[in-house]
Every structure is written in C-alpha cells, then in structure tokens.
C-alpha cells in the first residue's frame, strides 16, 4: 500500500510539474491541481498509514494501548483541500478573464509588460 502511494505521489508531482511547464494557460491550471493532489497524498503517506484502527478507545482505558491511525494528517489534508479548492476556483475565473482580455492562451505571449517599459 505504502509503495503504491509513494509511486502515485511521485507520478502526480512529475505530471503536475510537466503540465505547469507547458505553454497553454489551461494546462497550467491542470498542472497546479495535479501538483496539489500530489501534496495531499504525500501528507497522508507521511502521517503513517494504519489500517482499521481509528483513534477511539473504550471509556475504561485511559491511554492508547495499540498503534492507532493518526487523525492529524487527515485534518491537514482536509484543510488544504478546501484551501486549494478556493484557489483553483479563483484561478479558473482568472484564466477565463485573462483569456477574454488578452485574447491568447499562450503563456509565452504574456510579455507586453516587458516591452512597454
């Protein structure tokens, strides 16, 4: 399971980076989304995966006696998913607006600022 997730994380990072380096502005957004998912998976993986042992103990016990799943990475991932969801929504609107105004989706064409100075 861990090795599969590790490979998956690597693939998502690589694919994300590749897409970010493409010239099309839409692929840029896709790249960022993939990269973000890779990060979430990495946090999940590094929080140590424990199967079938939720961190809930019976009322008699005062301490954890077994190895339980760590709830914090999941909380972190939840937060980061929500945040990146908001940012991605903004990104898509921004890109749509930029496409309408600049009339290009080629990132190499976004260089009018360098010329007018």
């Amino acid at each position: 399971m861990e090795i599969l997730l590790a490979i998956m994380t690597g693939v998502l990072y690589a694919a994300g980076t590749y897409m970010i380096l493409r010239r099309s502005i839409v692929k840029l957004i896709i790249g960022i989304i993939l990269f973000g998912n890779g990060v979430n998976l990495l946090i999940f993986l590094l929080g140590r995966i424990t199967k079938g042992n939720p961190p809930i103990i019976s009322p008699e016990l005062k301490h954890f006696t077994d190895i339980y799943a760590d709830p914090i990475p999941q909380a972190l991932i939840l937060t980061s998913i929500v945040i990146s969801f908001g940012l991605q929504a903004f990104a898509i609107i921004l890109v749509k607006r930029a496409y309408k105004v600049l009339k290009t989706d080629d990132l190499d064409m976004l260089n009018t600022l360098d010329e007018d100075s």
Partner: protein
Amino acid sequence: MSENIITYPLIVHLFFSIILMFFWNKVKVQKIVTIIGNFVALGVAIAVFIFTWKNGTHVVNAGNWEAPFGIVFVGDMLSATLILLTAIAGLSVSIFSVISIINARLRFGFFSVYHFLLLGLNGAFLTGDMFNLYVWFEIIIISSFVLISIGGEKNQLEGAVKYFTLNFFGSLIFLTALGVIYGLTGTLNMADVAVKIQQVDNQILIDVCAVLFLTAFAIKSAVFPLNFWLPASYHTPPSAVSAIFAGLLTKVGVYALIRMMTLIFPHDVFLMNVLLVLSVLTIISGSFGAIIQNNIRKVFSFLIICHIGFMIGGLGIFNVLALTGVIFYLIHDIIVKTNLFLIGGLIYRLKSTTNMKNIGGLYKSYPKISLLLLIVLFSLVGVPPLSGFWPKISLFLSSYSTENYWYLGALILGSFITLIVVAKIWSEVFWKNQPELKVSKRFIFFDKLYPIQKWQFVTPIVLLALFSLYIGFGAEHIQSLSERIAEDLYNSQNYIDAVLKP
C-alpha cells in the same frame, strides 16, 4: 487573561472587514470605516508592542489546548515589532488608497479584502504553529490575488497570472515541506519541532526539508532564482496596492525565513552557505535589473529584490550582530518600500505617467514635494544619518569579522548601485526639463485637485517619511530594540521554554 491582547490585532481586522461587507455599495461610508479601522488597529498594535516590551515573550493557547497539541499564538518582540510596522504601513496605505483608487474598484469590496490581507499578515507574524502559518499565508495570498486583479485591466490580468502561478506553487512546496517535517517529527508546533528535530538521525532528510522550506519562502520573498514574478507583476495594480505588497508581502517571506532559520534549523552550515550564495546573486540581479529600467515603479520593484538580498545574507552569517542588522534593515525596509510605491503613485498623479523618459522638472514646479521625496530616496540609499545607513554598519561589521567577503562586496555593490539608481531618478525626474507630455483629457492632474485631496495624497508619504526620519535620528532606540530581538532569536531556548513551559 491579559496576554490575550496579542490576538486583538487579528480581531480588529476581522471585525472591520466584516463590517465593511455590510456597506458593499456605499463607498463613502467604506472610506470612513476603513480609516477608523486602521486607527484602531494602530492603537491596538501600540498596546501589543508596549505589553510585549514590558512582559517579554508570552503565549496564548487557542481553545486552552496545551502547547504541543493545540495551536499557539506567540507574541515575542519580533512579532510585536512587525505588527506595529504593519499597522503603520496599513494606516498610511489606507489613507492613500481612499484618495487614489477610483470608486469603480472600491465598489468591489476593495477595503474589505484589504483588511483581510492585514489580518493574514498579523496572523502570520503571531502564530507559533507551522500549519497555521500555512493557513495565514493562504489568507494573505488569496487576498493579494483579489487586490492585484481587481479592476481587471489588461496589464493587471497579465501580471496577476504570473503572480498567482508562482505564489500558489510556492504554497504547494511549503505544504510538501510541512508533510515531510510532520513525517520526521510528528508535530507541527514550531517550538516542539525545534526540540524534536535534534533527535532525528536522518540528517539528509532534514537538509531536504530545509531546502523545501527555503524554496517556498524564497518564492514568497523573491530571492534570486525565483524572483522574476515580482518585477513582472508589482507595477501593474494601483500604487496603493503595490505599496502594501512591496512593504509587507515579501517581508512576510523574510520573516518566515528568519523564524525557520533561527528556531528550527539553527547552525545548519549547509543552509547558511546556500543563503549566502543566494544573497549575493539576489543583490546582483536586483541591482543590475534596477539600473536598466525606465519605468519608476519597475525600478522600485527591482530594488525590493536587491534589498531582500541584504537581509538574506545577514541571516546566512547567523550571529547576533548580523541578526541585529537584519532586523534593523527589516524595520527600515518595510517603511521605506511602502513609501517608495506611494511616491510612485504621487508621481503618476503629478505627471500622468511613470516612465522616466516622459517626466521632468518636478523640482522646478513642486519644490516642497521634491524635498519630501528626497528624504525618502536618501533614506533608501542610506546616506548617514538617515535610516538605511545604520543597519548596514552591523551587516558590514559582521560580514567582515566572519570573513564573508563575497557578501561584503555584494553589500557595497548593492548600496552603490542603489545610489546610482536614485541619482538617475533624481536627475531624470526632478532636474531634467519637462519633455512634451501626451495628456489625455480625462486625467485629473494634481493641480486640479481640491486642497484637502492634495493633503490626502501627501499625508501618508509625510507620515512614513517622518517615521523613516525617526529610524534614522533615533537609531539608538531601534538599534537597542533590534539587539534585543536578535538576542531572543539567537538564543531560541527562551522561545521554546515560553511555548512548551517545561
């Protein structure tokens, strides 16, 4: 209970940004409310500063969860100072934006988002938890995305795409680093991480983690190989917006670097060397970039990069003297860089362009304003006894005594080129005769404004210039404050003890 005072700056900004949402279309009311809000924030910030000065580092546990488990807010001298500076810069920029930003922009909730930005900045300075720091960073960048793209002009959108991509990417790298450090230590509380990371055997993974943090914060603070987004985007939004960005956003990255370096990776020789090399390259690329530009606001953008290099290098030397210089420079830089972009806005209002080739004769037509701007520009260069001069003494001495001659050379070069750039601005903008101006009929020049509007343009610049003068002439106060902060940072055990209460 009284230590709860360090959360008040957050509450004030949150409160006012919510209040402002109720006046969505009433721009006049918004203008009054935002200025009141910033005055209140300044008052609270002064109270926080005095409280911290008297009582030293103090900690608030959110929800009363004990330190390593819950989120903590830590008010030490560095945080309190930065909150005070944020409040001063925030107030000046809000006064400037009231007059300089057109109502069409303000109607889209500009001030509400502006308060959210200040909220995020204050939160980032206060938090003692790494994931919480990430969340504050997200609040900062999402507000800054809105501020940079509000209005939707062609230039702005182009700048916004670049700004957005790099900053979002930086956040993702930061998150990766967080994941790695959680995997290594099993905690996210900065003080707790600082203790536990010493017990980790795998030094290579720690170095990897350190470099990931460095990359993330280097993107935020525009350090050399990752700095190209800054000059490509900072001159596109209205001057008031770029002023707050220039003054505070890049400095948040520097603040985060200082925290990480002093607390979590202290005496990491590898990281120190990387920082020194990067600082030299940052100074060189920033200063040479500034020389060739003709657009005033672009020149200032490159100067931001150049001066970030000064601070990063001092951090790389990592002794008390160098840290004193870094902190002093940070204090000076926040005020001066905010003011520079406000000046850019004022020059635009005077001449309807910021291209140096088309401007001239400012000294002839506006001698008083020119003298005001002269103070700021000389503070930037560091002509003694103005504010930029004093921190450089500490930086020079420390780099000389630790034999970092490359950094020393870069410091001298950077200061010298800043001088050349300022001389160029002075001769082009102030002394040269006015060339033919292409004037659009709709543009309202500074002369045509009512006296009260003129004062609104000039007041924030005067305010910040006075503060710069205070930093220059009251340097011993700032120096003793910086020394105290540097001592605190260098002996991070105090911070750790305050948070973990052993």
